[in-house]
């Protein structure tokens, strides 16, 4: 354990800065927010420490209901296996009435890297390996369509294909499908490349 890093001081400092520079400077906004949240966005982003949408898209509290998981995956609707993801989508769409669901993939994703390393005869990570296999169809499709791709190029293709699959999987949630049809909801797929410092929209799904 490092001796110079004080985790409690770190979050104390962070909270103080937030209170002084944000909360206290706009008490009306925060008072309103405390009563209710009305985010326009539901976002799915990776748990990776480098890709918080709050940082890269400069989000304020109240703007985005946010799910963060390894490799920003959205599995096909399954109440038994993936009630965690379903709960996020259900709450965001049915209760909060978000207008946009944005799935953000990113470069050098450890989850996709692990997926590409499977099957791994030497080491297994029971929980991680089970989870990243949600993106297996994207991996198989990319490999079939790009037989010569390897290394970082292959990984980037799978990272992006997985975002597109997540958008498709969102449609397996009935209230998402009906929101699209009623034009009260749209889906966006994005990709943040922190190696090159750029952000692109990969796909949109609207009525």
């Amino acid at each position, binding site marked *: 354990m490092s001796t110079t890093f004080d*985790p409690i001081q*770190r979050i104390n400092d962070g909270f103080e800065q937030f209170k002084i520079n*944000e909360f206290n400077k706009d008490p009306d906004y925060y008072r309103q927010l*405390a009563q209710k949240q009305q985010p326009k966005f539901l976002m799915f982003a990776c748990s990776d420490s480098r890709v918080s949408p709050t940082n890269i898209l400069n989000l304020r509290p109240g703007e985005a209901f946010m799910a963060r998981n390894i490799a920003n995956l959205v599995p096909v609707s399954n109440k038994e296996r993936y009630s965690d993801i379903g709960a996020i989508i259900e709450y965001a769409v049915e*209760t909060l009435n978000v207008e946009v669901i944005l799935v953000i993939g990113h470069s050098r994703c450890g989850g996709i890297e692990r997926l590409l390393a499977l099957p791994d005869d030497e080491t297994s990570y029971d*929980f991680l390996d089970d989870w990243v296999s949600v993106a297996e169809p994207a991996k198989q499709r990319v490999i079939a369509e790009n037989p010569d791709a390897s290394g970082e190029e292959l990984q980037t293709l799978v990272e992006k294909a997985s975002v597109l699959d997540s958008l498709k999987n969102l449609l397996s949630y009935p209230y998402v499908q009906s929101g699209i049809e009623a034009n009260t909801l749209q889906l966006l797929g994005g990709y943040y490349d922190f190696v090159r410092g750029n952000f692109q929209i990969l796909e949109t799904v609207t009525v």
Partner: protein
Amino acid sequence: MALRLQASTEGVALVQETTETTPKLINDSSDSFTEMKNRFLSFKKHKYLENLERYQELAQAQAPKFLVISCADSRVCPSYILGFQPGEAFVVRNVANLVPPFENGPCETNAALEFSVTTLEVENILVTGHSCCGGIRALMSMEDEENSSSFIKNWVVVGKAAKSSTKATASNLSFDQQCKHCEKESINNSLLNLLTYPWVEERVAKGLLSLHGGYYNFVDCTYEKWTLDYQKSNPKQETGGYAIKNREFWS
């Protein structure tokens, strides 16, 4: 608007749209794009390019000292309220910042737990809850043993031990106060569930990993934090005995 306010404060009940409420139509998706583009370019100009060396370093590898498990609620992003910068915290966000126990099997939360603990070797796990949590309210509102078609109910039942202990100790309080009590109990329940993962307990026992609880009250902007005292806790007790230390209240 009144219907939506009611839906938000009462948490989770599936909202039935009335005929009086007009759904918001998305007229132009280019509004979303333009806004996002401007925000990203601003981040790139003011943060990324001004700290290019740091970002290039991070592009090679991340070494966060924290795993943070936080609620998906739009008001409680740990990057914002605790000031985490790129590279500092591996973050999981789900409904009601719940951590299911090992025996529940694989899910997105414990996949991130496994990766951050065994591969990234984070030194701290912070489970951070908050006031007026819709997920906890759903947990407190649902009937026990309910077989539900709702995803939310199927998920929040992970926190049922917190609900039981709340009902046992705080049943004389108002429902709102019980929910607040449960919000905090649930954090401790999640900390104990963390210890059901062998590779977590092993590291905690060796002093390589600390488990912290945090509670953000966004009504009065205060933050309470505590650390699980592993030596004095005994999660194998029937009532899930735990001890905490270093409690602080920031206001």
